[in-house]
């Protein structure tokens, strides 16, 4: 093999490794960030269903780049509460799947639970059913942002 061919092969292999590694890292980050899911089911006869699933990595990016609100009072409150909330979200990730809050009455049901890597909020009433699933990792990133 000539030296030029060896150089070309090395460049190609390097590119393959670079693209493959980047793709693998992106896929891992995508998978790790989870999915934000919002589902609304209107139980009325002419009701509609709405479901939205967003890759968590988009939410994480939005959290990273969005500016903090310019309200000194609000910022002070957030700054005060953020360390405790961040600690709570950190601990959440180590807990088993569990229902934290379950409220039921004539008007419906509210449930907050940890399911896998997600924090799941369900609100069910005779008129509609709302489910919101947020990756705990995204909540943690939000708390870190608020703390800063």
């Amino acid at each position: 093999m000539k030296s030029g061919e060896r150089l070309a092969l090395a460049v190609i292999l390097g590119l393959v490794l670079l693209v493959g590694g980047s793709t693998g890292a992106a896929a891992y980050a995508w998978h790790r960030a989870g999915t934000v899911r919002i589902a609304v089911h209107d139980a009325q006869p002419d009701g509609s269903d709405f479901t939205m699933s967003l890759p968590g990595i988009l939410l994480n990016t939005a959290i990273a780049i969005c500016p903090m609100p310019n309200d000194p009072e609000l910022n002070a409150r957030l700054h005060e509460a953020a360390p405790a909330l961040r600690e709570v979200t950190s601990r959440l990730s180590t807990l088993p799947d569990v229902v934290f809050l379950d409220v039921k009455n004539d008007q419906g049901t509210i449930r907050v639970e940890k399911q896998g890597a997600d924090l799941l909020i369900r609100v069910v009433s005779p008129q509609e059913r709302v489910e919101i699933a947020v990756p705990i990792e995204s909540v943690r990133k939000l708390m870190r942002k608020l703390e800063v």
Partner: protein
Amino acid sequence: MRKLLGALVLASVTGSASAAASDDRWIHLRVDDAGGENGRVDIQVPVGLVSTLLPALKGKHGHGAIHVDGNEVDMAEIRGYWNAVRSAKDGQYVTVRDDDSDVRISKSGGFLRVTVDDRDGGSRVRMKMPISLVDAVLAGGDTLDVDAVGAALAKIPTGEILTVDDEDSHVRVWIDGEAAPAREDRP
């Protein structure tokens, strides 16, 4: 009824505080409607998880007095009563019998026990609180000493803390070693 509400307020203060130990046990609150309406509230949180939130309460909710049935109760007065009970031997210290209810407050085996029974059979309160925890809750002058409460909770044994049964609802607060499964699979 005022005594019942007083007992409930004390229980709620100490009950919220009982979530402050730094361990993996769980504190559970369960409220069931007794009126056949099938309403219920289930809350369960790791004790250690809530203990991380307690510092955030510092300086916010630690001041002031407790309001019982629309009347303000002086915390210094409560501390005075408590100090008297705490330094005495085990036994039954308060027995109040009136037209509405029987109230008994006793101390035994390291626990403060409060029993309230309505005369008409409507309400029934059973509260069993570790003395170290009551000490911590009442030790902070005009403020709630969150750190002391957290330290006291690290030693609180598992078991029932509060049960209240009346014509409207059943309330139960307890600590145990694991989370309870949901009472319904899916809402």
